[in-house]
């Protein structure tokens, strides 16, 4: 149901490009793995690109379903806020909210290793984009815990751990 369902991204109509996620956070890529992000238990909110969620809806970590075909392929999930502390002055770009590695394919994020615990986004100023990025790992990995959440760089992280281009990405917006 989400648009990151194995379709090659057409840059002229890709919401990730229009919303400048590709550019500010990621390099252009072709989506090859499905990813579904669902918040809430009673009041279910499935994340589609650029939908707006209230901070009260995103207090607890969502269910992230990872596609792929193989249980032996591992994936890394990164959740960042590139508009911290405010979109017109993103001095803390990107703020790392969640980092999970070694997620087995076809399963969910809670089957992986939570390197950085989920922290609920609490935007103070402006409307923030919150981005979920999925990378395919070449094998099981041991990732060093980043010292702090601010000024995380997804591109550098992917390069350092040889993750290559993303296989899926999704983002929503949130404001106070």
């Amino acid at each position: 149901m989400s648009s990151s369902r194995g379709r090659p991204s057409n840059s002229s109509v890709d919401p990730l490009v229009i919303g400048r996620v590709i550019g500010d956070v990621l390099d252009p890529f072709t989506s090859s793995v499905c990813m579904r992000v669902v918040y809430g238990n009673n009041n279910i909110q499935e994340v589609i690109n650029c939908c707006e969620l209230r901070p009260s809806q995103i207090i607890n970590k969502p269910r992230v379903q990872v596609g792929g075909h193989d249980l032996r392929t591992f994936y890394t999930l990164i959740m960042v806020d590139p508009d911290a502390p405010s979109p017109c002055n993103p001095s803390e770009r990107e703020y790392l909210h969640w980092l999970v590695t070694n997620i087995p394919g076809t399963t969910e994020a809670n089957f992986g290793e939570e390197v950085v615990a989920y922290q609920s986004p609490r935007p103070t100023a402006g409307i923030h984009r919150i981005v979920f990025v999925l990378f395919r790992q070449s094998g099981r990995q041991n990732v060093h815990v980043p010292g702090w959440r601010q000024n995380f760089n997804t591109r550098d992280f992917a390069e350092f751990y040889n993750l290559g281009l993303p296989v899926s990405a999704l983002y929503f917006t949130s404001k106070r």
Partner: protein
Amino acid sequence: MASSKIVTTNTDLPRDSSSSSSPLSSAAATSSSSSSYFLLHDQNLHYYSSSSMVMDDLLNSIYTTATTTTSHPSNPSSSPPPPPKTVDDVWKDMILTHSHRDSPHHHNHHPFEEMTLEAFLSKNGAVTDDDLTAVPSLHNHHPVAHQFPPVPAVEGSSSSAAEPFANGIDAAVAAGVPAPSSSSGGGGGGGGGGGGGGAAAVAKGKRRAVEEPVDKATLQKQRRMIKNRESAARSRERKQAYTTDLESNVQQLEIENARLLSEEVPLIIYILLHIIA
């Protein structure tokens, strides 16, 4: 384009000197762009746009440059005697004076206006050269905004009649600077603030006590406007991204729905057959 239009009107002027109204009206009918081109490049004219006196000055300057290249008109409102030259000679003289003035000040094309204005004012002794040397530093940093900042500095010591022109330029900086920088994010904000700061710094050098509160207010207004434009652009992007994503989702869901429906009917038939049989 400008040259051809001026030539056609000039053919009227030398031959018909007695009736001054018809060549003026025909000259006034030419495009304002061609008239402003000559308006700004002629050293004898004032730099106000679109006044009726301007057309008189334009035509008088055509006559005077035909006769003497560097003389000032003694009385702009008097009608000069018709020159004994042809149209081509007049045109050649104007080209010569223009190119002669142009070679020492050859910057890029568009800021012709303030370069010749500076030259004009410095020639007439209104501005000294050390005022002019303060200006080129702005040219390097802000090629977009530098059309405007040099003008208030150069104009600082001119007569009070020039004051509204300088204030108009300040407003033009406010309007002109954010426009090019509207789409770029932080860089646009920095460039707009820098351009506004440059204009403010230059203007401050000339008029200190009176202009400072106005400059701060305009600076803040500019920053506010730039920020507002950026956030407006961001919200348009968000809207567009959301709708395109929704549309693609709808399309996918429709396909899946059609597929499921097409599979549903044979499935029901199969079940019914198994129940019946």
